[in-house]
């Protein structure tokens, strides 16, 4: 029963794995080049979903300043506290409990090194349930990113403001935005190649392409496995 709950709680990974396997299967099993590209896209999309899901925190909002957030920032504008201290760590701890899988309190290392504290004690749960623990870690980083972008004073304000609002971790989203752009570029190049292949060979079926190449090179089809009819029969 626990095992079942363990498995169902991590439904995002099941989606990821299913999509990934589907994509890979399509790439390998389909002979049509367009279908291969579709499979490749499904495969890549599964990774996007994986990344996005690890950055999601239950109840967390998009990492954009909300009006209250801005107000809090204005109110503390002149305050030049050195670095986020207990508040920020506390915020991390609060949000840890609300994270996707719950679990041990383990504030992100970024936050810790930033605050100049010793490394946090690693919860025992880290080893028993690594995925859950890792998601907790992800609960912490959002404000650290801003910390580095801004001066120390702004960081302290943000830490206070962030204590009131729960943000999802934007970093995986940013990473995957990059990967999506790369994916689009790959798809465009792949489709362009398919267009050229269609013009050069008159077909986009892989076995027909192989047969055409064999005929061009040897004058005949050396292995019958290249022929579609044979494949269908097998």
């Amino acid at each position, binding site marked *: 029963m626990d095992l079942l709950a363990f498995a169902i709680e991590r439904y995002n990974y099941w989606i990821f794995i299913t999509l990934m396997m589907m994509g890979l299967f399509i790439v390998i099993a389909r002979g049509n080049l367009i279908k291969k590209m579709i499979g490749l896209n499904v495969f890549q999309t599964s990774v996007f979903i994986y990344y996005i899901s690890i950055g999601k925190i239950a109840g967390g909002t998009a990492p954009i300043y909300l009006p209250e957030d801005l107000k809090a920032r204005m109110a503390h504008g002149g305050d030049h506290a050195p670095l986020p201290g207990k508040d920020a760590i506390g915020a991390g701890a609060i949000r840890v409990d609300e994270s996707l899988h719950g679990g041990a309190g383990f504030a992100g*290392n970024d936050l810790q090194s930033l605050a100049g504290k010793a490394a946090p004690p690693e919860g025992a749960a880290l080893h028993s349930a*690594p995925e859950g623990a890792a998601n907790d870690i992800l609960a912490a980083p959002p404000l650290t990113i801003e910390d580095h972008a801004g001066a120390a004073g702004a960081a302290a304000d943000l830490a206070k403001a962030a204590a009131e609002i729960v943000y999802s971790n934007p970093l995986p989203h940013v990473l995957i935005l*990059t990967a999506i752009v790369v994916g689009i*570029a790959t798809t465009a*190049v792949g489709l362009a190649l398919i267009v*050229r292949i269609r013009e050069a060979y008159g077909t986009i079926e892989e076995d027909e392409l192989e047969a055409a190449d064999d005929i061009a090179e040897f004058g005949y089809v050396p292995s019958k496995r290249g022929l579609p009819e044979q494949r269908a029969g097998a």
Partner: protein
Amino acid sequence: MTQFLAQLPVLPIIIPLIAAPLTMLLPARALKGRIPCLFATLVSWIAFAASAAILHSVATAGPISYHMGDFAPPIGIEYRIDLANALVLTLVSGVAALAFPFSYASIRAEIDDHQLSMFYAMALIAMVGLLGVVITGDAFNVFVFVEISSLSTYALVALGARRDRRALTASFNYLVMGTIGATFFVIGLGLLYQATGTLNMADLKIQLAGRDNPMVEAGFAFILVGMGLKAAMFPMHLWMPNAYAHAPSAVAVFLAATSTKVAVYVIIRFTYTVIGADFDFAGAAFEYLIAPLAVMGMFFASIVAIFQDNLKRMLAYSSVGQIGYMLLGISFGTEQGLAASLVHLFNHGLMKGALFMAAAAVAFRVGSETCDGFRGLARRMPWTAAAFIIAALSLVGVPGTIGFISKWQLLSAAFDSGRAWAGFLIVASSLLSVIYMGRVVELMTLAPAPDASAAVREAPLSMLVPMAILVAANIYFGLSTELTVDLAERAATSLMGAAR
């Protein structure tokens, strides 16, 4: 001046990156297409000069850390250069600096004139991508740069379609395999990020210490498979022979000498800098999985190479075997083995570059890429033939050449780590390379030239000079090992030291 020196680590990236779109706008048809070629050559020389300066600075003053956007790591992106990167960086930019001037004659014969500016822009971007992979200290940055170089490489390979339409299918297969490899790599990174919350390689190492759990293991496995695909590690090499054989000859020169080497470098980097030695599974993966595959690759690929008729494809299969040597060296798990791998990585780049250059020169003058084209070549194109023979001797591992140095390093690493079997296998597979190289050399020197020999002249100077420089490097580093072996040993020591 100090400001300039402080910016040195990004110069090999940012200068070609800005130059690439400018190259696109240069006129392709004026002055017989010389303008984009000269511009790209100049840029690659600047990148090489910067890389050499980095290597010098790292060798004398220790690792460089450059903070992108003034954000301190581990949150900011860091360019971290130690000896291992600097060595590969110098190899990649050095080969590029020779391949660009070399490419002019060959590429003009093989692609349409109006594509020349685009070609050089893409080649510069491919170079930026490879340099970026090597230079960066941020794990996700590696993926971005891998894809930058791969995407331009797909297009470069497909440019061979004017001569042979199979370049298109080769490029498409390369695209599918390469994308799967890169995506596996991203999955691995995601798992490591999830386990640690950081993407900086040095910080990953700190965070991963003592966390030998299945998630990290899975992450490492994904990274290993992904980069193994890019490195054409046996049995994931099937995209490579076709891609190299059908790509324009000049593209094959650059790719064969650099791209798979960079992927091997990434494997080394992740194994030692990120995962480190306290993970038993990394050692076990190399001992029980990579080493047998490397040995199989060494033999299988060499045997297949013997039966190839297309010279470029034969050289590509030979590369698969040579990648096997590098991985075998890493799998010893000793400092010596790692140093031998790094030396071989560097040396193999030089010799494969020279061999592919000779093949490109023959394709340019004789118009044939099959072994038949080499018939009687010693009399028709003596300089090219000499270059090919020296590079072939180097590949086989004759004393006085770099091939001997790296084989010697590998052998001594094998015996010192108590793997005598590996030593014998290395020698045995070297004998196979004698067969496939000897076959071509025999055709060149002993076989009579076909009747049409009168029409064939020696390759133009723009090809001969870069080829001669590479061949000279083959001999120079074979006699004077200070630069390569000493640096590689120091690099291996620091990598291993960091791993502990």
